[in-house]
């Protein structure tokens, strides 16, 4: 599905995760190119965070991970912790949902950021402080030098998320994975943090994986979108195309449940039913029981993610190339 000629920065193949014998992730394939912004969207529990926690070895020990995660061709799964420590923060950084609990409550913010600087940039003493202050200013923390000595509880959620971003930038990573970075924040702050992520990406040229259940958040920031459902990827393609005319009925349902940004107000249609629990998936397509376009065959085969249009894939036996795209092609 990835059409860039250059070898991908990160390539995930057949990634599966089991928790206590229950499969949570059913073989994810995903490649991230240098500098690319990829949005991963889906309901909570669909495996979008687990994918990246597994890739970086951040899941608890009871999780069993298999498949392959390669960073510029180098395998990351099953390598010794010391190798992962070289990757985490330096090549791939990650920020999390609730910044207040993701920061250590008893350590000054400057020191928490400074740790990453000491680890990845070999800085020491005054250089750490100067660089930490520069990062704080870069991410737009007012009164940066005083904030270095503050503790997380003294800052707002949005400011703490900025600190998390500063910490992630400390190692000059090639990829930043932002796991629901705005979910715990107020709506106005959300927009600021998204703007900041876009700005930072433009300035550093790093790739960004933005994980969110919020389509609006993804639409604003991503070049490419992956839609996940019940531990599988069901659609992946260019952001504009997927938001315009999604191929997979689940992605269509997600958009139908979203209020339109412009145009007349319309009825919002929720997707009927609920996500099946991981331990009790239907035999065929996981989405079949909720799907408006279901046919008998859907109950028998798990549809593979396959390209319907070059660079645009969906895991649905009923999905074909979009009507609009064909017409556009004809009309042009």
């Amino acid at each position, binding site marked *: 599905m990835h059409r860039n000629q250059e070898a991908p920065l990160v390539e995930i193949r057949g990634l599966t995760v089991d928790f206590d014998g229950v499969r949570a992730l059913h073989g994810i394939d995903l490649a991230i190119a240098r500098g690319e912004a990829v949005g991963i969207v889906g309901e909570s529990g669909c495996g979008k965070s687990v994918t990246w926690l597994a890739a970086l070895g*951040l899941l608890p020990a009871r999780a069993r991970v298999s498949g392959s995660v390669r960073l510029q061709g180098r395998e990351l799964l099953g390598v010794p912790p010391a190798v992962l*420590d070289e990757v*985490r*923060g330096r090549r791939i950084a990650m920020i999390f949902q*609730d910044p207040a609990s993701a920061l250590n*409550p*008893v350590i000054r913010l400057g020191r928490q950021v400074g*740790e990453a600087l000491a*680890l990845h940039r070999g800085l020491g003493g005054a250089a750490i402080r100067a660089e930490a202050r520069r990062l704080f200013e870069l991410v737009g923390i007012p009164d940066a030098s005083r904030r270095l000595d503050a503790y997380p509880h003294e800052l707002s959620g949005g400011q703490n998320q900025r600190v998390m971003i500063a910490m992630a930038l400390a190692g000059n990573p090639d990829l930043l994975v932002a796991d629901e970075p705005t979910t715990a924040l107020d709506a106005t702050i959300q927009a600021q943090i998204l703007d900041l992520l876009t700005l930072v990406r433009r300035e550093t040229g790093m790739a960004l994986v933005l994980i969110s259940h919020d389509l609006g958040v993804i639409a604003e920031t991503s070049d490419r979108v992956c839609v996940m459902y019940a531990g599988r990827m069901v659609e992946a393609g260019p952001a504009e195309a997927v938001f315009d005319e999604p191929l997979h009925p689940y992605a269509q349902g997600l958009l139908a449940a979203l209020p339109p940004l412009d145009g007349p107000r319309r009825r919002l249609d929720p997707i009927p039913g609920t996500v099946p629990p991981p331990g009790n998936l239907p035999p065929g397509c996981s989405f079949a029981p909720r799907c408006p376009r279901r046919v008998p065959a859907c109950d028998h085969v798990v549809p593979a993610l396959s390209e319907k249009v070059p660079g645009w894939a969906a895991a649905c036996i009923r999905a074909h190339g979009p009507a609009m795209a064909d017409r556009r092609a004809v009309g042009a």
Partner: protein
Amino acid sequence: MLRFLLLRSGRALLTVALVVTFAFVVLRLSGDPALLIMSVDAPPEAIAAFRRAWGLDDPIWQQYLRYFGAIAQGELGQSMRDGRPAIELVAERIPATLALTLPALLIKLGLGIPAGIYAALHRDSAVDRLVMVAAVAGFTVPSFVLGLVLVLVFSVQLGWLPSGGQDGWLHAVLPTMTLGIGGAAVLARFTRSAMLEVLGQPYMRTASAKGLPWRRAVLSHALPNAAIPTVTIVGFMVGSLIAGAVVVESVFSWPGVGRLLVVAVSNRDLAVVQCILLLVAVTMVTANFVVDLMYGLLDPRLRSGAKGGH
């Protein structure tokens, strides 16, 4: 900070005053000291004279006020048994008690905290299970049973150590072990659960995600947080340095404060009992006060006053 100190000091004083009052009430309710000390068949005039001498004839509230006023001035009364100042009797027992409880405290800290940390870091391993079984055993077996078992093994069977009395450091080994093992078990359990709680926090994942090696993440991110709840139980142990050995001192006939308390209670030697209770209250309250200060040092959320804390 000053307000915090004043508030805590005020509360500490109030606690001590309540303990003093409680001691007075309970001891007066539990029997006539004159009859106990003089024995029942003493001549009535002698009993009356004893009562007059000790002020036991006065209305109870007068006795209370006098007693309270005396304590406020540091006057803790005299033993009704041998007429010596109660505080002197108690003070000369303190070194013997500390000779047991201080080494025991070191055992508790030196054994309990590392065992708890190790168990938490290797959760569900064989060592973790062993630590937990030992901790539950140490926690549930009463100290007099543990003491007697140790005597049975090391004194009676093996003949390595004396079973009681105070004659050289060898005599202190068994009572110290009895105190230390039980406390270490409690502390191991507490430390383990505090560590497990902290290890599951999102900020530990953040520490790993930024590339901090696990060992360093544990040392610099987990331990300072796990120390906060652990300080509570350590504070309690420090607070019971004086009075935490009542049972063990009795089992091993160790002449410490605890033994003196048992003897004084059975003799209704009011001044001595009150003096010990006051001492216990003061140590406990002081330890709690220090714990509160430690919280402030360990947890910046508490330091910044009422607006802190999540």
